[in-house]
């Protein structure tokens, strides 16, 4: 019993930072509709800044003052990010801003490395709170007790602000209909900046507040991101009490998990999330997200046209160039191009899901990594011949996709995205923690292709055939009746159903097929490298694919492929430099700001604007956009 109480108290103390960070994320999403992937980075900055301040400012006042100042400093950093990076892209198609926030993650990672160095930093103890309190005989760190006492007060203060002040009322009104708030004379730009600053400050505060418990390191941005997403989704997007309750549930669960089933702490969190969402699809206190609500911006879709003869000729020429690569390219060019081809297929499979299906998956790495692991495990454990393992891998990935899709498709929009992320993380943590079977962190090695393929040139052709074949199949599907049904379900679910399309079935099929193709890319990957590690299943890999699809352009068929080629090529050049993340991040942000419709979309727009056949309606559309 004593132990039980002690566990709960520790859990409550741990909930503190999680709640603050989740709250900030939720607030920002509510008003700006931006899922701020960089929120973990702001949390990390809060920790580092707090640490630096604490070294400079001694004593009680210094310690608590540093925490507050760290929050304010991160709030100001949030203002800079909002004004420089996000403001130019608010009117871009929905979710495009994700890419910008991912650029911010990369920039902050390298800046933190530059300023604070690579070593993990221990947080200072809070002055006067060094020891433990004995509660029912169990030692509880004094700082934990202080945390669990002040957190409800912070929560209350936030709640008061949201319900009793005009600012809070405006925030809630803007969450529902920001255009109307603007028409009533409220400057949305400043409201957005203010909310972003507040959300950032909360993240910074969370980072600084956990210093005596956890210190600061360069991985904490992603470490916190997953539980924060989980908390926000369980609590319900935009709900303060929900975030508080969910933070407590997750933290307490985690403490118990560590004690009783240490092998499955990560898995546990996602299982809870999945169960909650099965029962309450919009979280404990969430409100249903209605797509296309007031205040959502988005230009009407351009219909997708089959490629013209000219485009076909260009593509054919490009393919011929590729096919002849072994004649003029060196070994390095072959390996790099193989990587790019595989990544193009992976991106194209996500693009199919996202662009044509309108299903934004944050966890597409599950099928890519899943395919790679299916192949690797078959080879390792059953000594399956490579050719067979290669064919079974996409089937395995497709099977995973059926299950995940079946559960996730109950939801739409950001909840769907979060749930797909949760499943991907679930798979990742399974692979990570089930060491006996998967090798855990050590991955699977010695997964080489069959002898006849064990040559860079031959494997290049192998990858070329399957990648291009896969991409062309996806493209062909877009122009098939199935593709029409899929787009109909994306654009107007109800109307599609009224015309006799079983939208859920169509979407599940598309989800499965995208998973299958992702698995094919994963299988190509594992045999080209001879090994696979859990990072192929990580959030970062899913984000890579998302970035590529958005950078290329969601609404154009070529978007995924063009983006993947661009991204991989640039990445290959940049990773040779020490601070490549900084440069890559800035480059991503630059592309996002300059080309808010993606590379292909923006090129097309430029052609329409300056090329022939320019009309008054086009000008009107252009001007409204700017």
């Amino acid at each position, binding site marked *: 019993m004593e132990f039980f109480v002690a566990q709960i108290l520790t859990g409550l103390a741990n909930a503190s930072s999680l709640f603050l960070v989740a709250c900030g994320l939720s607030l920002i999403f509510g008003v700006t509709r931006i899922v701020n992937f960089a929120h973990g980075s702001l949390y990390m900055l809060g920790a580092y800044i707090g640490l630096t301040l604490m070294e400079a400012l001694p004593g009680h006042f210094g310690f608590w003052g540093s925490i507050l100042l760290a929050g304010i400093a991160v709030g100001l950093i949030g203002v800079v990010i909002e004004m420089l990076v996000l403001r130019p892209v608010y009117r871009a198609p929905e979710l495009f801003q994700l890419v910008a926030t991912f650029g911010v993650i990369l920039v902050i990672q390298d800046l933190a490395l530059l300023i604070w160095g690579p070593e993990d930093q221990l947080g200072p103890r809070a002055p006067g709170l060094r020891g433990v309190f004995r509660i029912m005989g169990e030692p509880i760190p004094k700082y934990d007790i202080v945390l669990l006492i002040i957190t409800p007060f912070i929560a209350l203060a936030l709640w008061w602000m949201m319900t009793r002040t*005009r600012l809070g*009322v*405006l925030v*809630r*009104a803007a*969450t*529902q*209909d920001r*255009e*109307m*708030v*603007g*028409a*009533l*004379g*409220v*400057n*949305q*730009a400043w409201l957005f900046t203010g909310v972003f600053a507040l959300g950032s400050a909360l993240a910074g505060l969370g980072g600084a507040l956990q210093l005596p418990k956890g210190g600061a390191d360069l991985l904490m941005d992603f470490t916190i991101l997953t539980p924060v997403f989980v908390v926000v989704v369980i609590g319900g997007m935009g709900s303060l009490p929900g975030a508080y309750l969910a933070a407590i549930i997750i933290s307490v669960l985690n403490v118990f998990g560590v004690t009783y089933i240490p092998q499955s702490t990560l898995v546990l969190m996602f299982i809870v999330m999945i169960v909650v969402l099965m029962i309450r699809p919009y979280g404990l206190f969430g*409100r249903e997200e209605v797509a296309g609500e*007031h205040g959502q911006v988005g*230009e*009407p879709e351009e219909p997708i046209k089959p490629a013209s003869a000219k485009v076909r000729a260009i593509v054919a020429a490009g393919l011929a160039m590729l096919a002849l690569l072994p004649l003029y390219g060196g070994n390095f060019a072959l390996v790099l191009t193989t990587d790019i081809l595989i990544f193009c297929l992976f991106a194209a499979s996500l693009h199919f899901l996202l662009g044509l299906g309108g299903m934004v998956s944050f966890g597409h790495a599950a099928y890519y990594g899943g395919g790679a692991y299916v192949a690797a495990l078959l080879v390792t454990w059953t000594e399956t011949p490579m050719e067979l393992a290669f064919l079974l891998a996409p089937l395995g990935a497709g099977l995973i996709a059926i299950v995940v899709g079946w559960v996730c498709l109950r939801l739409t929009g950001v909840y769907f995205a979060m749930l797909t992320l949760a499943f991907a993380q679930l798979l990742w943590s399974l692979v990570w923690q089930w060491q006996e079977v998967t090798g855990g962190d050590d991955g699977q090695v010695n997964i080489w292709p069959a002898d006849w393929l064990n040559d860079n040139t031959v494997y290049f052709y192998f990858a070329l055939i399957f990648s291009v074949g896969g991409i062309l199949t996806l493209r062909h599907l877009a122009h098939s009746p199935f593709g029409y049904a899929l787009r109909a379900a994306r654009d107007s679910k109800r109307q599609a159903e009224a015309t006799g399309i079983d939208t859920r079935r169509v979407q599940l099929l598309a989800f499965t097929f995208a998973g299958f193709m992702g698995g094919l890319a994963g299988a190509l990957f594992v045999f080209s490298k001879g090994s696979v590690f859990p990072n192929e299943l990580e959030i970062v890999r899913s984000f890579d694919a998302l970035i590529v699809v958005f950078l290329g352009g969601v609404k154009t068929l070529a978007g995924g492929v063009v983006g993947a080629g661009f991204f991989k090529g640039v990445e290959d050049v940049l990773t040779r430099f020490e601070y490549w993340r900084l440069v890559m991040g800035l480059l991503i942000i630059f592309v996002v700001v300059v080309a808010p419709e993606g590379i292909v979309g923006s090129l097309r727009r430029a052609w329409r604007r300056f090329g022939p056949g320019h009309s*008054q*309606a*086009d*000008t*009107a*559309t252009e*001007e*409204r956009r700017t």
Partner: protein
Amino acid sequence: MLEVEGVNSFYGKAHVLRDLSFEAPRGHVVALLGRNGAGKSTTMKSIMQLVRPASGRIVFQGTDIVGLPAHKVAKMGLGYVPEDRRVFTDLTVSENLLVGRQPPRDGAPTWTEDMLFDLFPNLAERRGNRGKALSGGEQQMLTIARTLMGNPSFILLDEPSEGVAPVIVEQMAQVIAQLKSEGLTVLLSEQNLHFAQAVADLVVIIESGVQVYHGTLADLQAHPEIRDAYLAA
């Protein structure tokens, strides 16, 4: 007070307003009439800059407001009551009013929450209720009250009588008359003449985004053939 001059507006590639021109002089109630789909709501949104006109001028109190952000247009004293109401359903009646609150303005009546509750007694009883708990008529009153909290000198009412009970429509007419007597200028859109007849001084009729009639209410009443040609019964 408000002059619309040669405005063209688009939705995507659809040309909705075509060289639309009319004016609303200070202190008058102007009814913007036309059939469903004639472009009335687009006109309202174009004035408010929620739809940005591709060409033309919209001059409010001597300033061309085309291209300004909507919140600046509102700050100049233009109040907008949308057709679909757009009440903040998760907020209480009082909170909805708080969103609309703006500082007092020279040359426009100043409203307080209590004065608006006098004007709309039904809302007073429901001040603590959430927007989603209100009836259609109450929501309509709330949107008008919310806009009045901004102390506008000019108010755009987009089909205020649509979908509300006849008794409320009558009440709405009284409110508009009162607003006029307080010195407000009103631009009111309607599909038919019934409601407009009770309150309007001037009438603008549009058809497919083109202005087809501009005159006094009395003139229009003298020419029933115009009404029959362009308006629903």
